[in-house]
């Protein structure tokens, strides 16, 4: 099963402050441990919310709100996507994230990731499938490598 470990944003990440060399080294070591254990599928770090946007909906109307956003603890700073045997194993890996000492509050979320094989194939009606197919065609998703 797949899980996503989400690193929460905080005042420092939102300020775009570069982490200390020690933090960077620890993070490298952690990612390497995940890779060597064969569990890491993907991992990315995010820019501060000043480079992003939120879309709010009201009365059927969408409004774009440009970042930055004030509530840092509601934002995220990065994620790991891992493939493990159990929820407990995902939590165990999350416990090993090198969160800087002295960090206060919720630092990480652990979410189970939906897997297409969790539901039978008939979940996608034919017309829905065609629409998805057309969309993928238009986007050229996964165009062949050279």
């Amino acid at each position, binding site marked *: 099963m797949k899980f996503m470990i989400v690193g929460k944003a905080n005042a420092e990440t939102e300020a775009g402050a570069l982490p200390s060399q020690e933090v960077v080294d620890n993070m490298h070591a952690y990612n390497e441990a995940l*890779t*060597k*254990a*064969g*569990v890491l*599928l*993907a991992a990315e770090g995010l820019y501060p919310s000043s480079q992003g946007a939120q879309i709010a909906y009201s009365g059927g109307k969408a409004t774009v709100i440009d970042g930055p956003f004030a509530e840092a603890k509601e934002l995220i700073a990065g994620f790991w*996507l891992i*493939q*493990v*045997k*159990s929820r*407990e*194993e995902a*939590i*165990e*890996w999350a*416990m090993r994230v090198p969160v800087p000492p002295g960090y206060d509050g919720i630092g990480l979320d652990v979410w189970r990731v939906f*897997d*297409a*094989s969790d539901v*039978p*194939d*008939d979940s*996608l009606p034919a017309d829905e*499938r065609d629409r*998805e*197919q057309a969309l*993928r*065609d238009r986007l050229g*998703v*996964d165009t*062949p*490598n050279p």
Partner: protein
Amino acid sequence: MASDTDDQARTQATPRRGTETHRAIEAVWRIEAARLIAGLAGLVRDVGLAEELAQDALVAALEQWPESGVPRNPGAWLMTVSKRRAIDLIRRNERLERNLIELGHRLDTDEDLPEVDEIEDDLLRLVFTACHPALSVEARVALTLRVLGGLTTDEIARAFLVPESTVAQRIVRAKRTLADKKIPFEVPQATELSARLESVLEVIYLIFNEGYSATAGDDWMRPALCEDALRLGRVLAGLMPKEPEVHGLVALMEIQASRSAARVSPSGEPILLLDQNRARWDRLLIRRGLTALDQAEKLGDGTLGPYTLQAAIAACHARALNPEDTDWVRIASLYEALAKLSRSPIVELNRAVALSMAYGPAVGLQLLDQIADEPSLKDYHLLPSVRGDLLFKLGRREEARTEFERAADMTRNARERTLLRERATACHVQGSR
């Protein structure tokens, strides 16, 4: 890493009941077992003994952690406990000590834990020992899942649909064989490396295929074998980054696993590759597979091994957004290369299909006629089934009907038999017009 058995345990906002701590310990075990057993085997040069020492440490954790909490560095805790036991054992057992000294093995009795690099080397030694050709294939599979995958005997038994005692026996016998035959705990010399690596890759792919052949209603441990095999493959790719076929196998498994949500209908019937809903293919696994394939092809430097070739074929399908976009010309040439390596008539059969898709049914039929007398295909229903399909496409309906009926008589799958009979009837109706 310094030995870190500090008492400061993690705290839990929602208090964990005993069973929850047990499940946390299981998770730690899953993560740490292989490295722990490898490090211990590096110390005592005996995989069986190392596994028992590691088990003892696991028992100690099960006794202590529900009270004390999970230590901050659980891997180091387990290593320290089991290493202490190992050293006690060596001191008490002169014969073991002499053996180790004869092996020229250092006996550092201080509390230092093995360095990370040493563990990596030991891990690779453990891979080759668990997959040693002196062991039967079943024993290799069971031992690999046990010491490298961190699975329990019960989990292995459920995954392979055999009684737990059978698996336990296989493991006990495997450990005894390793000891009796004095199989050294080492990575093979360059001269035998490629043959020995073949055995390792075979074991991993066998585990994967066992999981892949799981059907609806099976114990969930069974399909989970695919993920276990993928994990072992990825670990091996990290340990042997320069071996093209390791990446080839990983690529093959990633791409095959990417189709797992699309290959079975809700009623449990297999769906053929060309009929699968490609929207259900896992794009992330495909991307990972293509990256691994790229690596295998670069390292292979022109000559591709059997796993890389199969991965390359799987990649041709993965890259096609629609079945009609499939690069059959390339697939046919990859099958040709694979046929040269494997000399398998079944590979030739697949090549004939690819040729017919690339160049028309007549070309495919030509190859089929060459292999029609292969003794190993005598009872293989897909030969007449494919032949019937090609003849049908060529408008030779009467001959096609005979082939479909022959195939229907040969298959053991009831649903497939019905389909083949339907096709035979269709030949008749249209042929008589």
